[in-house]
């Protein structure tokens, strides 16, 4: 895990001072070293978090004759196998790193090499002879990669703040990016919330050369036609899934030259990954957990049970609402986007705990909910479809009680709930049936937007993500369509970004995700939908596959979504000093995103209640405004410079062919 950045210019040579400034903004991603390469048309920068071949894997790194250079963030977990194959084909390696596999694989297989990689990556390859830049991002968007097209070339980086190190780059919000954020929870690649800044789509590579700029996919999220799935036997599929998850977790634990820890949330997914590591590897396991002082959010009981059962060295951190408020500006500096939940903040504090304990790699359970159908959203869609087959049926209405046990205790609330839950946006033929309720409730944020921004959004016309669903998806199971939408929007844009990479890398910690392994995802996507969501039982096959490794009460406990105190974080007795300044009527008017009078009304409502007992919509509204105001200040006003920036040490790789031709290897 590292930070990457670079400049391609077909005009004057790239500015080395700018490149170093861009690298300086990525110091948190790579505190163990840095390096650069420059020739007349390209400059590549790298800040290193040394994990594999810690003594020999410095970057940028080149092939045998120095014609292909790479700067790389991530891991290619099958690099040992690929390296052996490439050596057999005559390639000579100078290091034992996964990075070097990339340049030789590119030489050997060209763009076909990306489909061979099993890992998580953001790659920039520079082919000197062809004067060609190739950017590539992993299948599901674990690692970030941003770029901006310029008249004479392009800037790219792991984080937007690095691109903003160039003072000539415009700093403004992108109306369509904001519109998507306030609908889908995040912009959908290639969009970002910043005008002109794009992110490379997961599963894609891009090429820039003198013929221009173009993109293509090397992998797509896809599912078989319903009823034509290759394996129909649940027992066989459970065994095959288990094998793949064990191998994925094992690879992520052993393919590291530094110790690897694991997150333990108390839920099924991280319990499975920790249990697998504990059972199938020899090294002692260190686990880390997040706890909350508010018992509504705390899962400490299950975390302790699992760590005791596995005999791990366990550490946890207890987070309060005021802790969240205190770090929130720093969280937004790292997230680089408005967010609708405070949940990333505790994860920022958790990765800090990991780092303070000497670890820089953790395995986590991220991705299982999307890949194996764990979210309530999928169960809700199942119930809504069931109801829609006979809306007049009293028996069918009772299905909601299976999702929400509170109904049994409050029968008087059922009719009103049923009207809003079942009857809105319920078209069985709608490919986004699963997601309309969420998008609808999120869009309530847009009632607060300023008139000016509303006009701009109307003109910008953000892309409708449903229109991007692939041909043939109408033949998929409805669950598969929901999974496609979830992986394309929330997983890549929020879970792996604001709640994932950014909160981990803020403290120089790499996350590894067995459930997002290439072979696990390809296998899971080909499963019959009923093996993932069996009636209303979520993650059915995962539970079945690991019933012997995880205690019954963790396997069968009702799913508890990861949540943290939201608005309540900012309206308690210890309201931080930054809050009033960021949320003042003047500051809101200056940012121009929200209507100051509406924000003032929302704040007054929150102050009366101390931020407690607000509706889901009001909680999202508060978080949207606070995080947007902080994003505006940190990036539009201050251009991404921040107190978290670190000075660069002397580079371990310094190749400058513009001033010194002898510096070729």
């Amino acid at each position, binding site marked *: 895990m590292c930070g990457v950045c670079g400049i391609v210019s077909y005009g004057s040579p790239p500015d080395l001072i700018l490149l170093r400034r861009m690298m300086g903004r990525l110091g948190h991603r790579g505190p163990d070293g840095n390096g650069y390469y420059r020739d007349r048309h390209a400059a590549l920068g790298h800040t290193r978090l040394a994990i594999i071949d810690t003594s020999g894997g410095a970057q940028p790194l080149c092939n045998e004759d120095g014609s292909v250079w790479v700067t790389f963030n991530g891991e290619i977990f099958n690099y040992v196998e690929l390296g052996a194959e490439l050596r057999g084909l005559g390639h000579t390696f100078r290091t034992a790193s996964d990075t070097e596999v990339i340049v030789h694989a590119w030489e050997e297989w060209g763009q076909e090499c990306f489909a061979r990689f099993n890992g998580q990556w953001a790659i920039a390859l520079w082919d000197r002879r062809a004067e060609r830049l190739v950017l590539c991002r992993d299948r599901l968007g674990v690692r970030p990669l941003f770029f901006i097209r310029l008249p004479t070339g392009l800037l790219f980086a792991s984080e937007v703040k690095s691109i903003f190190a160039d003072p000539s780059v415009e700093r403004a919000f992108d109306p369509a990016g904001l519109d998507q954020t306030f609908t889908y929870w995040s912009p959908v690649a290639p969009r970002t919330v910043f005008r002109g800044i794009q992110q490379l789509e997961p599963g894609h590579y891009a090429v820039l050369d003198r013929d221009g700029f173009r993109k293509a996919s090397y992998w797509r999220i896809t599912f078989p036609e319903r009823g034509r799935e290759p394996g129909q036997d649940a027992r066989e599929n459970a065994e095959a899934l288990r094998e793949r998850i064990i191998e994925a977790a094992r690879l992520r634990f052993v393919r590291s030259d530094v110790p690897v820890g694991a997150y333990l949330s108390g839920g099924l997914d991280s319990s499975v990954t920790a249990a697998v590591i504990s059972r199938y590897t020899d090294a002692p396991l260190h686990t880390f957990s997040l706890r909350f002082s508010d018992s509504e959010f705390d899962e400490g009981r299950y975390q302790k049970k699992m760590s005791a059962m596995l005999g791990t060295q366990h550490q946890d951190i207890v987070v309060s609402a005021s802790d969240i408020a205190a770090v929130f500006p720093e969280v937004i500096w790292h997230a680089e986007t408005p967010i609708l939940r405070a949940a990333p903040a505790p994860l920022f504090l958790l990765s800090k705990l990991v780092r303070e304990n000497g670890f820089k790699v953790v395995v986590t359970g991220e991705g299982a909910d999307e890949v194996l159908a764990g979210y309530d959203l999928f169960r809700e869609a199942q*119930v809504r479809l069931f109801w829609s087959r006979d809306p007049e*049926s*009293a*028996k069918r209405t009772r299905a909601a009680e299976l999702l929400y046990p509170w109904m049994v205790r409050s029968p008087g609330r059922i009719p009103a709930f049923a009207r809003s839950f079942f009857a809105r946006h319920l078209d069985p033929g709608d490919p986004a049936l699963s997601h309309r309720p969420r998008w609808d409730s999120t869009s309530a944020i847009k009632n607060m937007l300023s008139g000016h921004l509303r006009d701009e959004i109307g003109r910008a016309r953000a892309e409708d993500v449903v229109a991007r669903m692939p041909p043939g998806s109408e033949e998929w199971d409805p669950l598969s369509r929901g999974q496609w939408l979830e992986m394309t929007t929330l997983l890549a844009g929020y879970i792996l970004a604001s709640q994932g990479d950014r909160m981990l890398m803020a403290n120089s910690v790499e996350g590894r995700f067995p459930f997002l392994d290439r072979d696990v995802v390809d296998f899971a996507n080909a499963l019959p939908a*009923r093996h993932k969501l*069996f*009636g*209303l*039982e979520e993650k059915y096959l995962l539970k079945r596959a690991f019933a012997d490794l995880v205690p019954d009460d963790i396997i069968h406990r009702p799913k508890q979504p990861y949540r943290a105190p939201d608005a309540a974080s900012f309206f308690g007795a210890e309201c931080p000093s930054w809050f009033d300044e960021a949320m003042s009527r003047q500051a809101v008017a200056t940012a121009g995103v929200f209507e100051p009078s509406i924000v003032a009304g929302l704040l007054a409502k929150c102050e009366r209640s101390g931020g407690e007992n607000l509706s889901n919509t009001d909680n999202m509204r508060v978080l949207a405004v606070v995080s947007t105001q902080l994003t505006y200040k940190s990036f539009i006003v201050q251009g991404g410079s921040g107190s978290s920036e670190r000075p660069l040490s002397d580079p371990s790789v310094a190749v400058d062919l513009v001033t010194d031709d002898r510096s070729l290897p």
Partner: protein
Amino acid sequence: MNRDIVEQVLRDYEASRCPDADPELEAVRAAILIEDVFDVVLSDAEIDPVVFADTSAVEALIARRRGAV
């Protein structure tokens, strides 16, 4: 979908049943599964604890409904 799969699904459903739950609600739970997996639509009369208490009765119900399509 062949008979083996029908039997397998019903076996797996049996194994996952919650014996202490409200019988009518369990019938709704079973109906959600049966309709989803077998592409059938049940009537209110068929969403009944008595029907779902007997695997062979469910099998017959599915066959009847599929035949009716």
